[in-house]
């Protein structure tokens, strides 16, 4: 009996030790999985961005671009994120929306800038989207929504332009999985605190939009695609409660006011 137990344990130990040692090998590089997925992601990012580029007008006003760049650069530096990986595009649209596309493309609608009461609110939404990019949520969402094989076929040019348009629409208009949204919110608070930006207004923004939602639903895309905004505001407040820092503003009040009207 004892001998059998020992033999059984040896088999189990053999299995787990083989697994442990083999998992130390960098299989992803050997099978070129990361390279394949990053090329696919790059290609998808370009394709989806082209869709928005064709249908919407980009805001290339140097003042707006530089102001938004100041905010994003500050957030990236404070959180050790490579600034080059975030490709910001500001589009003229009244919708209060911002969303991430594959390969770090971040789309911000002018409606969001106009409806943010202060830079902290805008930074909160930007941090939330950067968190989606950093946590690789965009590709995860695409894979779970339309499948890996289909994505590869799109990136290799086999997908029709209609399919690409539909998928791009999906990214701008549909929320992530509830857990991924929460993860991005929590990460956004960390990013904000690290960048010495008060996370309170981010929660206020959600409260505010949740309250106004019923009145002007048409423009509140970001809120309608991100459900339970009140609940989200509550857990953001709860999480940010213990975090204190010497909060500062990035832009001057004058610059912010000017940015809102541009």
């Amino acid at each position: 009996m004892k001998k059998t137990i020992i033999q059984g344990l040896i088999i189990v130990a053999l299995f787990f030790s083989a697994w442990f040692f083999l998992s130390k090998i960098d299989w992803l590089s050997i099978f070129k999985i990361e390279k394949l997925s990053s090329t696919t992601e790059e290609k998808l990012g370009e394709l989806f961005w082209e869709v928005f580029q064709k249908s919407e007008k980009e805001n290339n006003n140097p003042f707006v671009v530089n102001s938004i760049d100041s905010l994003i650069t500050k957030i990236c530096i404070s959180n050790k994120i490579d600034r080059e990986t975030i490709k910001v595009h500001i589009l003229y649209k009244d919708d209060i929306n911002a969303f991430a596309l594959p390969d770090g493309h971040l789309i911000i609608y002018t409606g969001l800038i106009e409806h943010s009461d202060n830079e902290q609110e805008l930074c909160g939404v930007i941090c939330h989207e950067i968190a989606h990019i950093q946590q690789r949520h965009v590709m995860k969402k695409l894979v779970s929504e339309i499948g890996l094989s289909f994505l590869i076929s799109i990136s290799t040019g086999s997908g029709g332009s209609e399919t690409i348009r539909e998928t791009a629409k999906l990214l701008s208009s549909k929320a992530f999985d509830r857990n991924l949204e929460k993860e991005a919110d929590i990460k956004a608070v960390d990013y904000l605190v690290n960048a010495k930006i008060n996370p309170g207004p981010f929660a206020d923004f959600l409260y505010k939009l949740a309250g106004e939602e019923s009145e002007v639903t048409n423009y509140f895309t970001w809120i309608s695609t991100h459900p339970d905004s009140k609940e989200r505001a509550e857990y953001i407040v709860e999480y940010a409660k213990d975090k204190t820092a010497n909060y500062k503003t990035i832009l001057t009040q004058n610059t912010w006011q000017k940015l809102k009207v541009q």
Partner: protein
Amino acid sequence: MINIKKFTYQPGEHEAEKASNSYLMSLVALIAGLPLPIMNLIATLVFYVSNRKGTYFVRWHCTQALLSQLSMLFINSFGFWWTVSIIFSNEIITAKYIAYIIVALIFNITEFIVTIYTAIQTRKGIHIEWWFYGNLTNLICRTGL
């Protein structure tokens, strides 16, 4: 890994064939039931149940085949559901996953080869006890049924 041992009695032709079939059942079902890891276990279990009143030699080998399939079920089910979650949900391919699949494959191939060898030998009436599984079978399978 495998030991040729003398059985308590010399099994007859019919017994050897049935005992050998218990291993073949799992092999056939494994190929037919891929990628579902449970098919081979079900096939072996059905064969085991139908032969539970059989002779000692047949019962002994049915039990050994069943036990080996049972342990493979745990390994394969885990790998199967891990793969499913990668394809259909938010899981991503990691070095850990690839390592697991490699180890699972090694265990499966080893089991596959040993099963074929045992099926051939058992058919000739030679009694083969596997390392660990043989001892475990001796504890479970009693002569006096």
